[in-house]
C-alpha cells in the first residue's frame, strides 16, 4: 500500500462489536457435543442429515427431528487455499478453507484443513477432525482446531 503524503493525517481506528447471542436448543446441543469431542447433525425432511444442525430443514422449512452423531471423518467437496492467514483466522499457517461432508451427513460443514500445502488438497480427499485438548474446549465450532488429511496425525 502506498504511503500517503506527509501533509495527510492518518490514525488507527478500531471498532469492536462485543456480540453475545443465544443459540437455541439445536445449535446448543451441537456446541455442547463438540465440547465432548463429538459432532452432531439433525435429521430433516426425507431423512437428510443436516450438519451443522438447524431447527428447520433448510430446503422444506419443516421442523427437523432427532439429533444424530456424524463423522468424525468426511470428504472435502470443495476448498480454497489461504496462503496468508489473517490474525483472527483459525490457523496461523497457510491452510485451506473447505466444505466437508462428514460421514452420515447430507450437507457440508465449512471448516479449515491443515494440509501443509495446496498440493496436498483435492476435492474428494478424506479428512478427519483434530479436536483441541479437552481443557481448551468451550462449546464452539473451533473446539475442532482443524481437519487434517486422513492418516495424518
Amino acid at each position, binding site marked *: 500500500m502506498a504511503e*500517503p*503524503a506527509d*501533509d*495527510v*493525517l*492518518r*490514525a*488507527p*481506528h*478500531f*471498532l*469492536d*462489536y*462485543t*456480540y*453475545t*447471542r*443465544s*443459540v437455541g*436448543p439445536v*445449535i*446448543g*446441543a451441537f*456446541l*455442547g*457435543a463438540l*465440547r*465432548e469431542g*463429538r459432532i452432531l447433525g439433525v435429521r430433516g425432511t426425507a431423512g437428510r442429515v443436516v450438519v451443522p444442525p438447524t431447527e428447520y430443514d433448510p430446503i422444506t422449512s419443516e421442523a427437523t427431528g432427532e439429533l444424530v452423531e456424524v463423522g468424525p471423518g468426511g470428504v472435502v467437496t470443495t476448498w480454497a487455499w489461504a496462503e496468508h492467514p489473517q490474525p*483472527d483466522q483459525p490457523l496461523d499457517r497457510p491452510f485451506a478453507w473447505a466444505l466437508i461432508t462428514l460421514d452420515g451427513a447430507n450437507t457440508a460443514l465449512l471448516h479449515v484443513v491443515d494440509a501443509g500445502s495446496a498440493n496436498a488438497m483435492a476435492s474428494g480427499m478424506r479428512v478427519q477432525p483434530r479436536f483441541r485438548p479437552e481443557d481448551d474446549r468451550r*462449546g*464452539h465450532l473451533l473446539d475442532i482446531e482443524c481437519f487434517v488429511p486422513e492418516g495424518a496425525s
Partner: protein
Amino acid sequence: MSEIVSILETPIHIDYHFTAGLAQSRFLKGIAEGRFLGQRCPVCGKVYVPPRGSCPTDGVPTTDEVELSNTGTVTTYCVVNVPFQGQSIEIPYICAQILLDGANLAFMGLIQEVPADQVRMGMRVEAVWVPPAELGPTMASVKHFRPNGEPDAEYETFKEYL
C-alpha cells in the same frame, strides 16, 4: 446427552487505519488551531465544512480555503434520552445539526449549557473549545456548542440545511 450450550460469544474486532485525505487533513489541522476551515466551490460558491475536497454538485475541486465563524445556527436537533453501551455523555443530551455562519453545509455537534427542553431550531450557538494546550487534530477539540444569546435565526435562513 451432553450439556447444551445456550450462549455464544461472537466478538468482532475491526482494525482500520483511517486516512483523512488532503481536504479533511487541512480541516483537522485548523481544528488543532481552534479554527473551522472550509472550502468554497469555484462554480456554485457554496462553502463546505468539513470539506471533502470537491463539490458534490459541480464535480470540481474546491481549492479556495475559507475560515468560518465560531458561531452558527441549530438547523435541527435530537434529544438523546436512551442510554447505550459506550455512551460518554450523561443523558439527556442534545445532538444537533449546526450550520456555521458562512457555511453551506451543516455538521453534527453536541449542544450543552442549556436544558434539553429549551433547545430549538434556529437557536444561535457558539463553539466551546478545549483549553489551548489540549487542542489536537480531532473533533474532540470542540467540547460542545452553547447558546450565544443572539436572537433566533429566521427559518428562511436555514430551511435548506435541515
